[in-house]
């Protein structure tokens, strides 16, 4: 048995999947050991391949955004006018007449009227961005093997890819079937496409939920003053620096609010999902667009297990994170340990841990931190499938 011969025998065994017949007994024994080691490598491939497939949609959206940003800006070209245009002639110097003045006044008035109206499309685009983590509600309009289409009050139809999603029933337990057309759902996931009319979300959790009030059908408005209302959507950008919410105001209007990320983290920790919670919008320090979502007493029932009357049935657990790995962790709760399944794209917010999003993205350990975990129990395995983790300080 020479090294070269063994190299060749191994290569042939790898190519064919079988040990070459001419291998001697001692060579066979050695090749079996080598192939067993290769089989160990195979055990991790499936996991990595699944992670890669899961990461692809958001990564593709990021790259498309990058490509769009690289395109050269249009160059302004000034053409020499051979003769005055119609507009120029109308307002041009000595030829400005009474009729021209009236036309100008009417034109200015029309423009003022147009810009003072809520601009539906622009507000929609600002509400969500690619890679945002988002929770929103809607009614299932269509369902097939690839996912759902839901009708939302904020954006109309939204496509939800649900191949990797967990479906929860009204009690917060994992169910086998996707929601059916006509059922009200809450969706948590990541925005894949934020273009107007093409909104698409990679769903992580789709839960049957009580239908939230639909509002008066008017387009979104931007809220710039203290107010109270019901949360119908929350979104956090990829870097955890910006957060937005849509609030249904008592008079039926829907308002888009840029909220303080920490206050939204606190609300998520308190509720699991704030959808359906009644909140108060404040302006601490009097700074515009940096408002806080503060739950009002009675905004959710605060029964301690995360269920709140009008929101999605996410269960909320609190405890200390232990045995953290890429696939899960143990949550040491007050009444015992809970095994938690962790998705590759599980959203983790630093909360009051002292860590930053940059730390978390860099792989900082979350072992030993207290945390609130929102998700649902799988009755078949007894495991808890996490949708969101908000960290707290170490005990």
């Amino acid at each position, binding site marked *: 048995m020479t090294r070269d011969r063994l190299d060749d025998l191994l290569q042939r065994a790898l190519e064919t999947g079988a040990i070459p017949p001419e291998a001697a007994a001692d060579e066979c024994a050695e090749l079996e050991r080598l192939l067993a080691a290769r089989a160990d490598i195979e055990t991790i491939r499936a996991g990595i391949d699944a992670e890669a497939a899961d*990461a692809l949609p958001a*990564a593709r959206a990021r790259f498309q955004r990058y490509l769009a940003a690289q395109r050269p800006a249009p160059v302004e070209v000034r053409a020499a006018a051979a003769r005055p245009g119609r507009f120029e002639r109308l307002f041009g110097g000595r030829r400005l007449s009474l009729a021209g003045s009236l036309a100008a006044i009417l034109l200015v008035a029309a423009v003022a009227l147009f810009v003072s109206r809520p601009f539906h499309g622009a507000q929609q685009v600002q509400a969500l961005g690619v890679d945002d983590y988002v929770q929103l509600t809607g009614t299932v309009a269509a369902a097939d093997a690839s996912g759902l289409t839901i009708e939302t009050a904020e954006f109309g139809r939204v496509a939800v890819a649900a191949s990797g999603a967990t479906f929860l029933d009204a009690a917060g337990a994992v169910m086998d079937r996707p929601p059916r057309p006509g059922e009200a759902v809450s969706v948590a996931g990541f925005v894949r496409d934020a273009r107007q009319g093409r909104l698409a979300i990679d769903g992580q959790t789709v839960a049957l939920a009580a239908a939230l009030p639909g509002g008066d059908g008017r387009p979104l408005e931007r809220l710039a003053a203290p107010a109270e209302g019901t949360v119908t959507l929350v979104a956090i950008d990829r870097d955890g620096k910006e957060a937005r919410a849509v609030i249904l105001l008592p008079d039926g209007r829907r308002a888009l609010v840029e909220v303080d990320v920490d206050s939204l983290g606190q609300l998520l920790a308190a509720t699991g999902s704030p959808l359906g919670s009644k909140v108060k919008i404040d302006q601490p320090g009097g700074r515009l667009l940096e408002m806080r979502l503060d739950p009002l007493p009675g905004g959710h029932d605060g029964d301690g297990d995360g269920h709140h009357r009008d929101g999605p049935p996410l269960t909320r657990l609190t405890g200390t994170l232990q045995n953290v790995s890429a696939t899960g962790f143990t949550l040491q709760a007050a009444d015992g340990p809970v095994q938690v399944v962790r998705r590759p794209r599980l959203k983790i917010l630093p909360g009051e841990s002292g860590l930053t999003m940059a730390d978390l993205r860099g792989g900082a350990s979350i072992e030993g931190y207290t945390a609130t975990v929102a998700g649902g129990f799988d009755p078949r395995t007894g495991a808890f499938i996490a949708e969101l983790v908000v960290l707290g300080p170490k005990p």
Partner: protein
Amino acid sequence: MREPGEGPHEPTHEGDQADADLAARAARREPAAWEALFDAHYRRIYAYLRFRLASPDEAEDLASQVFETAYARADAFDYRGVPIEAWLLGIARNLARDVIKKRIRRGPTDDLEAADLAGALADDDPAPAIQLRSDLAGALRCLTEDQREVIRLRFLLDKSVAETAHLMDRSEDAVKNLQRRALAALHRALGGEAYPAGGGA
């Protein structure tokens, strides 16, 4: 200095006209060509990086950076038969090393090759670096970086011996020898019985 697989080489494969056309369009920075490249290669670039880095988020971020870096350098890419994926893998390798070196300067890390780069093997029980069994993660730390690289390329990315030889700037015979020694070292590190030290070599 160029890493193997990153710079121009003489053709090693018979011209794949479609690949060459795609490379030419990519060099002109046609968005559609880059979207096609991304869809064709992202998963394998992610897998390559994921095998090296402890954090899936970081692997995802770095995989995206690979394509952004490649796009920025598009006009410098000289196709001449070099598979595009080899070029992307070369960029991925350099980015991963930069990240790991920075992390080593900051403190302990779970990345698989960090121990080699730091000049010391980790003695503590490492957290699984991938979705690995902890014994496999520990065993991989006992391999040299060359051995891990041949495992990544041959058994994770399914590169042929010839492609691996090209990417590692080695002969095919050297790759065959290296893959045998890598598997033997892995088997031994996993507690394999009756295997001579040195992987039988």
